[in-house]
């Protein structure tokens, strides 16, 4: 698997090279780059399968590299030191990322995921989606990529009625009555969608307030949705949900 490593700090490049060499022998490092233009050149030259892309690169970003490329037919694993600019967008695009210092286990998992994608030749447009979302201010992000078994679905947030946990999986219930199973925990989506106004009413439920019809007082608190479904509100979430609904 041809790979290119992009990071503005040499020590990070060296470290990643060492770890990959030791733990991911299937990865062949074709080149490393420490700035955007070198990165674009290297990708054009080596047509890698996999790119490790640092997000913050001095004054520029890893996203700038992507913008400058006409073809983006490779897998990207973003690398970042801390939850900074863009990581939220990466999450919304359901793309993979690693945090520095790199956890070896996480690295192995990310590489094998990329390998799997390349092997099954799933063509995705997640990078296009990411770049689109990045054009907008963060508050206007209104779509999310959902990684399904064999495809990626882009769903408008206003289409989502609610999410329900099934252990480490999450069901999405859409306005068109579709039900999508995604292999990430509800907790992760709760963290993503709470800033978008979604309400965590219960350990197993995340609800789009747009579809809340009324608050039923039975059993300590139940939300009646416009779809007719009744969603429980657990005690720890009661105050927050009540307040959020009052402010609507």
């Amino acid at each position, binding site marked *: 698997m041809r790979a290119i490593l992009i990071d503005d700090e040499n020590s990070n490049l060296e470290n990643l090279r060492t*770890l990959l060499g030791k733990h991911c022998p299937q990865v062949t490092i074709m080149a490393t780059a420490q700035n955007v233009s070198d990165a674009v050149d290297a990708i054009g030259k080596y047509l890698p399968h996999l790119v490790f892309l640092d997000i913050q690169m001095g004054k520029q970003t890893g996203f700038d590299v992507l913008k400058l490329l006409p073809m983006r037919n490779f897998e990207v694993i973003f690398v970042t030191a*801390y*939850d900074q600019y863009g990581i939220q967008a990466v999450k919304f695009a359901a793309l993979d990322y690693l*945090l*520095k*210092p*790199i*956890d*070896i*286990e*996480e690295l192995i998992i990310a590489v094998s995921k990329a390998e799997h994608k390349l092997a099954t030749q799933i063509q995705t447009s997640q990078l296009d989606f990411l770049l689109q979302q990045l054009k907008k201010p963060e508050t206007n992000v209104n779509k999310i990529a959902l990684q399904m078994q064999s495809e990626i679905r882009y769903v408008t947030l206003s289409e989502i009625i609610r999410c329900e*946990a099934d*252990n*480490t999986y999450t069901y999405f219930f859409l306005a068109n009555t579709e039900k999508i199973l995604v292999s990430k*925990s*509800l*907790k992760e989506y*709760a*963290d993503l969608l709470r800033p978008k106004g979604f309400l*965590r009413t219960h*350990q*197993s439920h995340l609800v789009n307030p747009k579809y809340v019809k009324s608050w039923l007082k039975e059993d300590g608190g139940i939300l009646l949705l416009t779809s007719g479904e009744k969603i429980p509100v*657990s*005690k*720890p979430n*009661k*105050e927050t949900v009540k*307040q959020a609904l*009052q402010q609507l």
Partner: protein
Amino acid sequence: MKKIIFLFLSFFISVFIVNAQKGINFSRTSMAGGKLLMCVDSSAKNVFYAQMFPNQPRTSFNYLPEVNDVSIQIYFRKNINTQHFRYTILADNKPIVVNKSIDRTQLKDVDRGDEEVFRSTTLGVFPIKGKTITTLIYSIEKPLDIDKAVFYGKPIPRARIKALSKRFATDKGVDYSYITDPKEKTNLFFAEKDNELTIVKDRSDIDYVYYTSIKDKQTNKIIFESTAWNYGGYVDESHELSPYVKIDKNVFKKSGDYEIIIQPLIKWNGCHDCDISPKEIEKYITRYTLVISLDKENYTKKELLIYTLIVAFSIGSAFLVILYFNKKRNKKKLAEKEQQKNIAKLQLNSIRSQLNPHFLFNALSGIQNLMNKNEIDNANKYLSKFARLTRNVLDDKELISLSQEKTLLDDYLQMEQLRFGFKYEIIHSEDLDLANIEIPSMLLQPFVENAVKHGISQKATDGKIMITFIKQANDLVLTVTDNGNGFDTEKKHNGLGLLLSDSRLALLNSIYKENRFTLDLQSSTNGTKISLALTDWL
């Protein structure tokens, strides 16, 4: 004029110039009621003739205040048998002619050019100034049908109210209370039991001339009118019956000023040469003011409706105002609550952010040791753990899932294991959904840190820490147990972590009102067990 007379009394001839008699120029003729005409001198003014009154079908009243003499003629149709007629004349109620027949020899044909010819004779000429002449005429065939004509030469006296009386209900029936000779302005109080007002007028020969009305002075509306008088029950000093009129209490709807007006029912403009000013007329009118206070006000339907609406509106607007302020207050309360909560959250964050620096740097030292021992993989492993721990502190997330908490505790304890060779175990109820149940982040870390520090750090490899996540009905119970030497629970605040935990729990309790965070601490020389219960959390 002629035409009118003719039209009104078709069997009389109207125009008739009486010859001058006794030097009086009787040049003006009017009908006088019954079969009579009267003539008055041409210079006489204000001749109010043939006035009729309610309930007095056969009485005709002629008011002649400025006439000196009057000549009275009787007229008969040609086909009427004049022999049957008798007449009586009274001057000031004293008879001067009684039941006299018509002197047929004196009857003359009167032809004024109309189709019908009447026969007429003069009954007499009388001085009328300051006097009253009354004629009574009937046919012996119908002796009950007496036509009465009154020629009133005196000023009509002003009526006077002799008494006002209130009728009120008693146990036995009714009784009356009186105000005799009331003043022109009289206060009158109507209690609930009072039900009727009676106005007693002074008696006169011509009571029928007067009528009574009551005006509401606030609205200037006449609320009561009566042309009839009752008799019986009230007698005056000369034992004559006094006329009275009864007025239901309900006529007076509200407290306030009312005017009783008693005046002659004279058509002041229906006369010869009427030249009587309103001021003159006023002289005939009696006015009394009643200042009425009602125990219970009566209201008309319209007023009731208006009052109801006003009351409803007032209540409604008061309600709205209250609602508005309530809402405002609630909003303010809510805002205050929110603010308090935010403050609590901020305080919570600041408490949460404190990871023991002692631990941080010791952990880094441990990693350094691994590097120096060339244990690269271990160094990597612990570095990742260290990064995850510090990242979690920096992330400042309010809530993390139980599985995240478990990972963090694993990370932490494994790092501590580098320093102290104890054993630990994290177990949880099978039915706990670790991935999705959230708890405030770094909730247990201070207790675990305490267990390491005070519990097992001295015991080295014999030390053991057990952490459990247990589901108890709806409660989530988290415990940390160690087999260390224990510590004095009374002086439990000897570690910074525990001190912070205490205030943190207080803050959490203020944020999660529906749940309770309770901490139980048991410590002995055999070990310490802390148990943190989150009630109704699941």
